[in-house]
């Protein structure tokens, strides 16, 4: 969508002419909306372009081309090309599946059609109002899908067409509409209507109904379709969330670069070695004639030889792994919200592991922290508190305190205050009453207002209607009271919230910072920006109230730029879009305030509380899995190719391969392809329950303990040691015969290493680890028997030999021991939790409740190790904030240019509307 439409924006800016009740003279896009990236025709070129743009793929393509130079490649001509094609095929299949999943839906309207939409329906295309059930072709729409505003907007058709209400009338109409081409400006529209025999009339934004908006308070409306499908303003506005790359991905790219440098160094060392070796041996080696050395050619040879030091399969493995992880997020039943039938949705799969590293959480308040459903529960009038007592946990949401009404009736000293209070509740708001037969439905732009009005209604102060200059209420005692223009709204909820947040966040000597939009404007100015940031960062919580969308994203941006930490922004409305797109990870709450936030987010969930599972379980798991997968991919390639380097030392730096060429070529794509997948998909360091119960576990991923320079080099050194064992030991032992058998040990060792990395052996892990070894043996057996039937591997013939098995035992034993030892005397919290998990299935329950006995010791032990600074109360299953120590919250902004109250006051609900036709 992104690139295509923006260019289309310019190209199709040409005005369009639409003929009424006649065939159109130019072709317009149909009303099909597809978010698919490819079509059948564009797939191959676009896909290849996307893939080759990735540095790693370009590198392998370069290697594949190099191999075509005769006599340079030590591994034949196709050993890179074939795996590369294989990998591109896998990536292509993944792309197709992903693209196929993206929703395509059809509504058969075409430009020039006249469409009737009834109350409550969403408009199917952008259209010009012809007439409606209301007088003067008025209609009300709600545009929350477009801009996140929940208030009703008034649109009015042209008076010239307002009378065209019946089928016959409409059939008779002829003329044309001239209007501007499709564009993305929601509040602009220029055009005119030329009905035959009449002078042209201008059409402006007031006459336009936009796709995605919902018809409200209006029985029906007739409209002429002007823009369809991708031409609609909604689609023109739906840009893809900006491409975000995860921290892990950046680090990985860096490490690939490091490996590339190592590769160059290895190739250089080998080439220099070849130069020296030929200088000393070239003369005397009678069995090798015409030993010419070209340094450049040699360098190329060695680059080809060592090229797979950079794991060819890493990128595609990661893509598939992350795609599956995203599916797991979508499939999670704990994050499915029954009431709105909304499952969680990962809209991107490349930020999964980022969810495991979030340090700063930015949350919108209204609709996000508070779920936008408000009830009048308590009040305090003249010092007397009414309503339920605090400890009540019952789910009844209603205000239920008879004392209030009793006090009015019994002429309590505060009776006047109570009446005043209730009257104000019923009067001071921007709510529009909508009558549906005998019941009144309140259309409130903000739910707190609705709650207050409903509360007042329950207590007998019924708000029944409003005119531009008055508000009508039915009160208990008096029949009808008309209040004229009264102003006064209260917003005491905020202070309440801040104490709440302080309670749950303020652990030590913590404080919360509250700042409003006006002040924030100065705080964000250049001079004091750093000071403000320092102050904000020293607080456990920062609450910014009444801030604009821009300020929200500015704050996120500031933290993102100045603090080296991952930020997450969560919100539900159009005003959160900026911050959602700015933050490293954007989460949208779906289902309440329209699609805007969801559409720009990376992950969408239906409830704020699901964030806990998204971060603590999916985030942490994904991080663990992805990093293990990456490190393992590095490991297995370093092992194999450092062996080649060692081999160069004993073969005169000639570039000879130790393993048969196809064994190397398929090593990455077949023999050791499955273990990374199982590590990346099924690995579970701890069970879901423990992840949620011990939020400290999140710190491990948050601090990138599993993936940093140290760990990377650790794995490289581990691989180095393994390669030394794997090469130099057999060299010492096997003096006769040849050593192609080493590849046996490599595959087995590498698979066993995957087994060691695995902490949860599902059936798939077993399949991958043992299956890979088996596959290798089968391949080895078949491959070594097929020559000369299929002329590819003469060297392999008859290689099946079992005297190597003893070796494998030793080698694998050696590689096994170090991590085992590590586990015993250096236990991390993670390992202790794992240990606990194995000890009792009902993790924690007994341990936490018992105040004596062994379980307490375990707990103390646990605390002493890692929870040094955190008190035991943390061990209660708690909300997500504990995992995320710093937070920001936003309260929703009051609407800007035209205030809600102004719009509302233009309503006159006492007037009768035109009836249904």
């Amino acid at each position, binding site marked *: 969508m992104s690139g295509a439409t923006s260019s289309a924006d310019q190209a199709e800016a040409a005005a369009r002419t639409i003929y009424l009740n006649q065939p159109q003279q130019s072709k317009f896009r149909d009303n099909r909306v597809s978010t698919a990236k490819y079509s059948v025709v564009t797939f191959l070129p676009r896909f290849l372009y996307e893939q080759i743009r990735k540095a790693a793929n370009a590198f392998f393509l370069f290697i594949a081309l190099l191999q075509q130079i005769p006599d340079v490649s030590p591994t034949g001509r196709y050993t890179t090309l074939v795996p590369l094609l294989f990998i591109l095929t896998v990536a292509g299949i993944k792309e197709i599946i992903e693209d196929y999943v993206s929703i395509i839906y059809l509504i058969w309207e075409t430009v020039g059609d006249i469409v009737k939409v009834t109350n409550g329906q969403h408009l199917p295309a952008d259209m010009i109002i012809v007439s409606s059930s209301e007088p003067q072709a008025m209609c009300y729409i709600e545009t929350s899908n477009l801009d996140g505003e929940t208030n009703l907007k008034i649109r009015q058709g042209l008076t010239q067409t307002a009378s065209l209400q019946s089928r016959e009338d409409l059939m008779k109409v002829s003329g044309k509409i001239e209007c501007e081409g499709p564009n993305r400006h929601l509040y602009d529209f220029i055009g005119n209507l030329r009905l035959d025999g009449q002078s042209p009339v201008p059409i402006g934004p007031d006459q336009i109904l936009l796709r995605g908006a919902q018809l409200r308070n209006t029985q029906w409306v007739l409209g002429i379709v002007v823009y369809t499908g991708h031409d609609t303003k909604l689609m023109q506005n739906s840009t893809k969330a900006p491409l975000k790359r995860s921290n892990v991905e950046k680090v990985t790219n860096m490490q690939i670069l490091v490996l590339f440098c190592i590769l160059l160094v290895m190739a250089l060392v080998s080439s220099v070695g070849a130069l020296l070796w030929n200088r000393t041996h070239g003369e005397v080696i009678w069995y090798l004639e015409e030993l010419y050395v070209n340094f450049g050619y040699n360098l190329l040879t060695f680059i080809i030889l060592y090229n797979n030091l950079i794991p060819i399969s890493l990128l595609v493995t990661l893509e598939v792994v992350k795609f599956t992880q995203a599916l797991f997020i979508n499939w999670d039943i704990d994050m499915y919200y029954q009431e709105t039938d909304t499952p969680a949705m990962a809209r991107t799969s490349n930020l999964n592991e980022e969810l495991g590293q979030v340090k700063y959480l930015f949350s919108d308040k209204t609709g996000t922290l508070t779920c936008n459903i408000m009830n009048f529960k308590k009040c305090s009038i003249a010092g007397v508190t009414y309503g339920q007592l605090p400890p009540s946990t019952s789910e009844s949401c209603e205000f239920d305190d008879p004392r209030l009404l009793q006090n009015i009736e019994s002429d309590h000293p505060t009776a006047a205050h109570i009446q005043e209070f209730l009257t104000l509740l019923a009067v001071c708001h921007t709510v529009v009453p909508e009558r549906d037969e005998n019941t009144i439905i309140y259309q409130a732009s903000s739910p707190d207002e609705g709650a207050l009005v409903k509360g007042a209604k329950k207590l007998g102060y019924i708000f029944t209607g409003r005119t531009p200059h008055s508000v009508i209420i039915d009160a208990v005692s008096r029949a009808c009271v008309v209040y004229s223009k009264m102003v006064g709204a209260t917003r005491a909820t905020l202070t309440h919230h801040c104490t709440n947040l302080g309670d749950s966040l303020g652990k030590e000597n913590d404080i919360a910072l509250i700042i409003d939009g006006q002040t924030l404007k100065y705080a964000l100015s250049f001079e004091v920006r750093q000071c403000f940031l320092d102050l904000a960062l020293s607080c456990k919580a920062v609450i910014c109230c009444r801030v604009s969308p821009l300020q929200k994203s500015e704050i996120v941006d500031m933290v993102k730029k100045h603090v080296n930490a991952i930020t997450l922004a969560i919100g539900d409305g159009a005003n959160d879009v900026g911050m959602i797109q700015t933050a490293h990870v954007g989460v949208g709450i779906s289902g309440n305030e329209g699609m805007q936030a969801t559409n720009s987010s990376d992950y969408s969930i239906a409830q704020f509380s699901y964030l806990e599972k998204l971060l603590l379980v999916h985030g942490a798991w994904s991080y663990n899995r992805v990093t293990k997968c990456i490190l393992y991919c590095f490991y297995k390639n370093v092992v194999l190719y450092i062996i080649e380097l060692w081999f160069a030392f004993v073969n005169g730096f000639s570039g000879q391969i130790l393993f048969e060429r196809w064994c190397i070529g398929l090593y990455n794509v077949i023999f050791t392809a499955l273990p990374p997948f199982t590590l990346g998909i099924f690995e579970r360091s701890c069970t879901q329950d423990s992840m949620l119960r011990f939020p400290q576990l999140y710190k491990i991923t948050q601090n990138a303990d599993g993936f940093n320079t140290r760990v990377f080099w650790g794995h490289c050194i581990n691989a180095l040691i393994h390669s030394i064992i794997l090469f130099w030991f057999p060299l010492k032992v096997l003096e006769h015969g040849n050593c192609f058998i080493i590849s046996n040990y490599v595959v087995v060792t590498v698979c066993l290493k995957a087994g060691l990395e695995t902490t949860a052996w599902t059936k798939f892990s077993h399949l991958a680890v043992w299956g890979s070894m088996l596959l290798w043996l089968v391949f080895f057996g078949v491959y070594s028997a097929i020559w000369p039937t299929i002329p590819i591997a003469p060297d392999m013939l008859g290689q099946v030999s079992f005297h190597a098995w003893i070796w494998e035992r030793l080698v694998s034993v050696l590689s096994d021991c170090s991590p085992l*030892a590590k586990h015993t005397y250096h236990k991390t919290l993670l390992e202790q939790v794992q240990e606990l998990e194995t000890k009792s299935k009902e993790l924690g329950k007994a341990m936490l409740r018992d105040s004596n006995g062994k379980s307490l010791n375990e707990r103390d032990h646990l605390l002493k190790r890692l929870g040094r600074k955190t008190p035991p109360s943390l061990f209660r299953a708690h909300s997500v904030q504990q995992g995320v120590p710093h937070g920001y919250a936003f309260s929703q902004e009051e609407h800007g240019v035209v205030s809600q109250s102004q719009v509302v006051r233009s309503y006159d609900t006492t007037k009768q509307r035109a009836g249904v036709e």
Partner: protein
Amino acid sequence: MKNKNSQGAQESPSRCPDNSAFKQQKLPAWKPKLTAPTVLSSFFTIGVFCLLVGICLILYARSVKEIQINYSDICLNCSKLRENSSNWDKECNCSVYFTLQENMLGDVFMYYRLQNFYQNHRRYVLSRSDAQLLGQDVNIQNSNCAPFTIYPNGTPMAPCGAIANSMFNDSIQLFYYLNSSTAIKVPLLKSGNSWWSDKNVKFRNPTSYNLSSAFAGTTRPPYWQKPAYLLDEEDERNNGYINDDFIIWMRVSAFPTFRNLYRHLRHTNQFADGLPAGNYTFHITYNFPVTKFKGEKQVVLSTSTWSGGSNLFLGIAYTVSGAVIVLAGFIITAIHLKLRKKKTYFQR
């Protein structure tokens, strides 16, 4: 973009995900328990296992009787002679005396061992034509055999390539001294030493009514003294490309020091049980130059066919790693016990 269709809100099926173990990531999984007892016991088990295997291997290696003689040192004259390639047609014989202190019972194998010979050099490894060795009539100029493909006059080499050209061509015979004056030739088998698959699948002679005609139109490689069809005139099934010495040579070694099986003992008469103790001599026709590239040649008699014969390295490696693992096990136990004591101290 999950917009709901304008009408279908009610009819659309629930989007509630399946509650299956796979989708909810609750697949049963075996979690290796890495508690102190399990880790320690596995350490000790593995350590003891390694120690046992190591000791077995050492014992086995020591039981292997092996004698290894560096004849490129002993036959210094011949070595010198061969350094100059212009002397290629001068024959050089050399005898190497040695005494077996103990009987070598069972199967006895004779190897030649080369040091510093880079059979694993890439150009060398590539320089062969597998199609030719399969007996196929191929144009070897398209193969990798260069520069050993054809002579300037256009005659192709059979077999072609650097590997074949540099074939080990010393002949070694073993004599046993019944007494100080009479020596008898020890019967050694020259076939049956190669892998079955090599002998029967990978190497084939070109077909014709007899072998020499099959090789008609080709010439021996430049460093050979006789053509391929005369490699073993006595045994038709060991001649030409399917000559065992040739096959074994063609299977290149991965390391610059290697030994290739040359002969094995035929159990007859005095040698029914193996080689008896006593005095022996190797009669060597020295053709293969090694001193030029600072290499060495050995002849080896051994009773073992695998794991490098009397090579103690494997056994020692096992023993050492076993010992290290057991030691580590003890250290870890000590640390574990110490930490546990500390912990209980804290709690009081």
